[in-house]
């Protein structure tokens, strides 16, 4: 099993006995919004490192079951698990079930996110609330509930999927930007609170990644966007997943409170 997937592709490698042995901790990983896109790629990557994975979905049960089946087919362990993370009871719907199935959640990837774009003058309360609730508040609530077990285990990995939009302006996305900037601040504060218990908390800030979230841009906007990206291409979910896989690994145990930007140079 190699290190970070420098070729860009994290294949669903067969989970070798070595990987499982290397991950000696009794516990599992939860990836929210893992039925597709970055979340699905992260679930596969963590499973390849030996983690049993809770593949959370809100409504795309087929997508989540497919990811879980693919992981199991490769020799890993996974459970598709339903919850709308924006609901206050989401942590209660997820963590105890995973604890019964795999043991305590020691790796949490807060990836579930959505957009509801509009210029600020026309952005409605519902659009604002929905995005903040799913992208930021949900991450806080699940983090709050997961920390106890991580602290007792003297090991934890929390990775929040933020965005370059949390750092640089993007007209039409005030709600999304605020939620991602909030996620970055949340990352740093929680990291500092729990660092001495062996729990690291980091964020990745993806740029323009090829997923359904970014697929419905008008053609003209596409070209303008590529001009703004030094790498002159969009990124893949696997390239983001490889970074999260590293942050979750034992090698990253001295990395905490940091933001890893994955944007092909866009915001450099």
């Amino acid at each position, binding site marked *: 099993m190699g290190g970070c997937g420098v070729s860009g592709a994290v294949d669903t490698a067969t989970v070798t006995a070595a990987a499982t042995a290397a991950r000696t901790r009794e516990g599992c990983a939860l990836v929210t919004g893992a039925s597709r896109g970055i979340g699905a790629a992260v679930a596969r990557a963590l499973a390849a490192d030996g983690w049993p994975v809770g593949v959370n979905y809100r409504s795309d049960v087929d997508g989540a079951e497919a990811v879980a089946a693919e992981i199991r087919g490769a020799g890993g362990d996974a459970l598709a698990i339903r919850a709308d993370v924006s609901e206050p009871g989401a942590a209660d719907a997820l963590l105890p079930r995973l604890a019964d199935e795999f043991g305590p959640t020691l790796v949490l990837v807060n990836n579930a996110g959505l957009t509801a774009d509009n210029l600020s003058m026309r952005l409605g309360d519902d659009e604002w609330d929905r995005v903040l609730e799913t992208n930021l508040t949900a991450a806080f609530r699940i983090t709050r509930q997961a920390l*106890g077990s991580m*602290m*007792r285990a003297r090991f934890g990995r929390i990775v929040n999927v933020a965005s370059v939009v949390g750092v640089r302006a993007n007209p039409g996305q005030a709600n999304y930007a605020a939620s991602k900037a909030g996620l970055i601040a949340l990352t740093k504060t929680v990291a500092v609170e729990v660092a001495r*218990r062996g729990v690291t908390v980091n964020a990745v800030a993806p740029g323009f990644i090829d997923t359904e979230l970014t697929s419905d841009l008008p053609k003209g906007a596409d070209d303008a966007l590529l001009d703004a990206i030094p790498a002159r291409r969009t990124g893949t979910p696997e390239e983001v997943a490889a970074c999260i896989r590293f942050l979750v690994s034992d090698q990253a145990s001295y990395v905490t409170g940091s933001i890893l930007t994955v944007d092909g140079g866009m915001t450099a």
Partner: protein
Amino acid sequence: MPETVTKEQIQTRVIDALVEFGEEREDVSLEAKFEDLDVDSLDLVELAQIVEDEYGVELSDSDMDKLETVGDVVDLIAGRA
């Protein structure tokens, strides 16, 4: 969870927890103050979680604010366990 838990058992558990957090056992007397012991809010939060998990006693924020010594914690748990 034991049906009747004695104050001595609670005291031992609390002291064991603080030693686990890095305190020297001989420093952790009932009169020892948390601020003198270098026990901070994160340690107390973890202690509260242990107390809840093992004795079913929930500590509210106002409870926690009033805890100054090791003995305070033992008394509080013993009163509610």
